[in-house]
């Protein structure tokens, strides 16, 4: 079973929920994938050393200057302006390249080959005998995160439970992270910002055709608007995590949230059972 933990707005508690799920579900073979590769934070919730680091690359074109006649066809073929032909050389802009391979295919002289361009690393951390954390970490200055997210998700694909900590927003990176999941937990907060961004992320999850439910974090009292949105969207409210300044403070200080707020364990377990039930 693969559960994505997502939210439109940043800072609503995605990582808190994803890491707590990983801590509570101790009976299964579990992998937690931190797919927020721009700013991965799940590892901070566990003080475990990284046991393996893999470099992730994507393909970019490489021009053989001895063969190239500067005909300009590669530049015409490229939709992303990643190749510019000058009189005596071809400039390649790796950061614009989408690795589609069209330039290689259409070069009349086979003077273009492909070479690996590093975009980030994947760190593997053992959390317990049964649980592993996979963290994707994007290289500074790299604009394209989806290939790294895809690579991180492809590891340990057979684990019984897979939890994906997704990047905020609703762009292609979020879609890549949520894609292929059996269920999507959308974490929100009861503020106008939270509401607005939740509506957008509901649209994205619906586009993927994945069932999901809402978790209201920092819940205080009223959540009428969220309840209405839940009814309209068909995404039930699975849990309300009460606002607690003590929890916020403890979480910021790196203390164990499950200890600071003991009822959190029950809430998290209950969320998992509801997901299990929906999927069975």
């Amino acid at each position, binding site marked *: 079973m693969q559960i994505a933990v997502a939210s439109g707005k940043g800072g*609503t508690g995605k990582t808190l929920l994803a890491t707590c799920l990983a801590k509570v579900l101790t009976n299964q073979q579990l992998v937690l994938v931190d797919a927020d590769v*721009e*700013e991965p*934070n799940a590892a901070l919730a566990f003080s475990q050393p990284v046991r393996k680091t893999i470099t992730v690359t994507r393909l970019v074109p490489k021009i053989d200057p001895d063969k190239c006649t500067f005909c300009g066809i590669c530049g015409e073929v490229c939709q992303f302006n990643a190749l510019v032909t000058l009189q005596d050389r071809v400039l390649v802009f790796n950061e614009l390249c989408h690795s589609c*391979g*069209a330039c290689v295919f259409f070069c009349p002289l086979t003077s273009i080959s492909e070479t690996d361009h590093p975009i980030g690393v994947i760190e593997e951390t053992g959390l317990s005998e049964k649980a592993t954390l996979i963290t994707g970490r994007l290289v500074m200055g790299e604009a*394209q995160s989806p290939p790294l997210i895809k690579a991180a998700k492809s590891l340990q694909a057979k684990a019984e439970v897979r939890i994906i900590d997704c990047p905020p927003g609703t762009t292609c990176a979020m*879609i890549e992270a949520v894609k292929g999941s059996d269920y999507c937990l959308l974490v929100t907060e009861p503020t*106008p910002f939270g509401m607005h961004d939740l509506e957008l992320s509901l649209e994205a999850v619906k*586009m993927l055709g994945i069932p999901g439910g809402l978790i209201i974090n920092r819940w205080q009292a009223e959540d009428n608007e969220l309840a209405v949105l839940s009814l309209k969207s068909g995404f039930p409210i699975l849990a309300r995590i009460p606002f607690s300044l003590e929890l916020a403070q403890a979480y910021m200080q790196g203390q164990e949230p499950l200890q600071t707020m003991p009822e959190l364990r029950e809430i998290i377990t209950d969320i998992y059972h509801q997901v299990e039930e929906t999927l069975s």
Partner: protein
Amino acid sequence: MKEILFISGKGGTGKTSLTASFIHLAGNCIACDYDVDASNLPILLKPENVLTCAFSAGYGARIDGESCVSCGLCAVNCRFEAISPDFQVIPLACEGCGFCAKVCPVQAISMHPRSSGHWFQGRFAEGQTMFYADLRPGEENSGKLVAQVKTAARKTAAIDQCSLIIADGPPGIGCAVISSMVEVDLVVLVTEPSRSGFHDLERVYQLMQLRGIKGIVIINKYDLNPVIGREIEDWAAENGIALAGKIPFSTLIAESIAEAQIPAVHPEIREMLFPVWENIKEQLRLV
């Protein structure tokens, strides 16, 4: 003309509440929201739109079923698994590279501009201008949309002889953030005193350094964790980054946001944020 950009790396540190507040304190400036896929600044500034423009990030392939001979060349060459076994284009997977259209032996595939969202020009307060956008869920190229919003804002600033642009940035360090930083004079780093807040701050700061941009730090909700707050202060001092201010956790700010109001409209918050704004202005004079 100068441009100030508010970013944080981590989401939820209070960027938008503070950006809106400083826009309010600044008065005569153009406001921008570069968080194009989850734009929240308009919720506080409540602009009235005067211009709506369609945005197309690129192209999408379309297969004409009647001319298609099901040879499969398109699917074999597509690296994005965007062509289904029955030769339909999967729009969410298609990156618009056009490889399929060029390789199709019977010209059954054509490329069409895809509608990826909109950007808007609006008026708020007493005739101030703001720019923001709305990227459709699942679309890529948010950086390109950010660039369009930025170009429109800079053009208007030049025409109106407005000397200041204040922009709310997106979270992360990816394409939208990289695009947000173009031509920016000063980045205000809004952080919170947590391990993740600090970790993300360091990453986004490295990105700024790659681009040679100056920054100034605000530690928001400082009192929730003075220990890491102190660590962030030391880190800023070591890196020669000025501290604009330390803002305590405030239920007043939370209440303003709950009511979709700009926090700095409240006199108490205004008083608290005023010296922070003075520090930012001073730093801007120095760059």
